[in-house]
């Protein structure tokens, strides 16, 4: 019996995981300094306690089990479970992201319909696009005067450009043949927009939506590390303060998993609007 490629790749994946865990355990320690009969000085130096250290895979896994068993615990405003933190982050990402969808898609549509407008706005978009999210933060805090709304704004401002550009580009590059089909069927502008241009541009628009979702998720972590309070970014920051790298690694994994899930979500939705020529 021969194995299918899928089975081969699954086996390889599992093998790599084992290898990773094995090597990880080999090169990391648990931070304890294995000393007995400590002098007072040594005790105060923490030689009897665990030190900050790079955690091995098993330590991280144990921590993950512990954290995920009570994902919504609440020990006061500055110590909440990973589930709660992720929930806050996702909420903020969604707020900023949806806001930019609401604005970027129609605006991008209009820009794409007018080459003059497109050209006129290009320089501004190109200047604003590469600005780091953290550069927006002080400005947002100053103007909006609310740290949560500011992080939502930063999500908004960073995720809007790929959407705007992709929507405009998608609309602009709708094949003239498709437009001609609409024209010969005497469609008015509105009908044309919804029955020809939008469906034709949707795959490109969704590419922008996916890029933006990725950016939003990157940005929220950075923004929350900066302003703190709640969210996965704050969680990372709080654990980093204590040099608790196992928790940092665990939250990095969670950030990755949620990021992947958000991306998969958009990808899943986009499948319904995708087409092949």
């Amino acid at each position, binding site marked *: 019996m021969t194995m299918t490629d899928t089975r081969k790749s699954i086996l390889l994946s599992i093998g790599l995981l084992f290898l990773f865990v094995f090597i990880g355990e080999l090169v990391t320690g648990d931070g304890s300094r294995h000393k007995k009969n400590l002098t007072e000085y040594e005790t105060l130096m923490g030689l009897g306690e665990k030190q900050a250290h790079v955690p091995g895979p098993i330590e991280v896994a144990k921590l993950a089990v512990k954290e995920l068993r009570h994902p919504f615990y609440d020990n006061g405003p500055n110590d909440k479970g990973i589930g709660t933190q992720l929930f806050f982050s996702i909420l903020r990402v969604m707020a900023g992201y949806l806001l930019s969808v609401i604005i970027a898609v129609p605006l991008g549509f209009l820009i794409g319909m007018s080459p003059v407008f497109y050209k006129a706005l290009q320089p501004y978009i190109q200047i604003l696009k590469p600005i780091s999210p953290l550069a927006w933060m002080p400005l947002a805090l100053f103007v909006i005067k609310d740290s949560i709304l500011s992080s939502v704004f930063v999500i908004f401002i960073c995720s809007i450009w790929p959407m705007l550009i992709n929507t405009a580009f998608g609309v602009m590059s709708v*094949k003239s*043949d*498709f437009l*001609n*089909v609409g*024209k*010969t*069927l*005497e*469609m008015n502008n509105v009908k044309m927009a919804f*029955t*020809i241009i939008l*469906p*034709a541009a*949707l795959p490109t628009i969704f590419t922008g939506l996916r890029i933006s979702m990725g950016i939003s998720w990157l940005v929220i972590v950075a923004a929350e590390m900066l302003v703190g309070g709640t969210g996965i970014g704050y969680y990372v920051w709080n654990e980093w303060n204590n040099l608790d790298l196992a928790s940092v690694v665990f939250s990095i994994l969670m950030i990755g998993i949620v990021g992947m899930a958000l991306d998969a979500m958009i990808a899943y939705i986009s499948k319904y*609007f995708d*087409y*092949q*020529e």
Partner: protein
Amino acid sequence: MDTNFLNVKNISKSYPIKDSNSFVTIYENVSFSIDKGEFICLIGHSGCGKSTILNNLAGLNLVSGGSISMQGQNVNKPSLDRGVIFQNHSILPWLSVLKNVTMAIACKFKTMSKADIESRAIHFLKMVNLDDHIHKKPSELSGGMKQRVGIARAFAIEPSLLLMDEPFGALDALTRGKLQDKLVEICDKTKQTTFMITHDIDEAILLSDKILLMSDGPEARVAETVIVDIPKPRNRASIVNHPAYYVIRNYLVDFLVNQSSLISQKLKTGSLSDKDLPLTVDPLQLKYNLENNIINP
């Protein structure tokens, strides 16, 4: 007063040359007419301006000079009265085969019920033998099938004038042949007024009542009108046996190989005048001339 169904009078088209103030004239002084029920083919070298003329007729592209009128109405924008089958089928890839056709029908027959629209669409898809594939997406179709969807879509809106731009250009010979047969069959049935662009001389002879020949661009002209006086209904297998067939065929080949460039040279040097164009060529006359060794003027 024009009595013809469609009248094209002295139209020309020019485009501004990029980064300069001058214009390039693609074609000029083009005049011809189409009668109701007529099947017209337009033949010419690549780039001479055939698609441009077709787009002018469709109203997708406006002429720079002259006028086009259909049934007394000036043609200056697209209309449901003129159905177009595009050079590359232009089926909307995000819609199913059926939806591609129903969408067009809904545009034309605004008051028709959903069920009627659908049965009409199915009727026309059946006509092109696609009734087994109505729920497929265009990406699941072969090139020939896509082209048939285009044909069904165009016929389904019952245009007064059907415009086809090399509808079978991208297909293999076998598929093309089958579709030509289909087209012959449908046109015979519906007496559809049609203007078609093709590079395929045999196809043109099989389908046309008249063939318009274009000289080379730029500043191309519709130089000649060849009358295809072969009785209908025609048949791909038997038409070759008709005495006029090879006469016309040879004539067309000669035009494309030699005359089209010669004519544009003559127009430039002034040895040929626009008022003599287009020449009308009668195949019977040709045949007679040939048999009596009379040299073509």
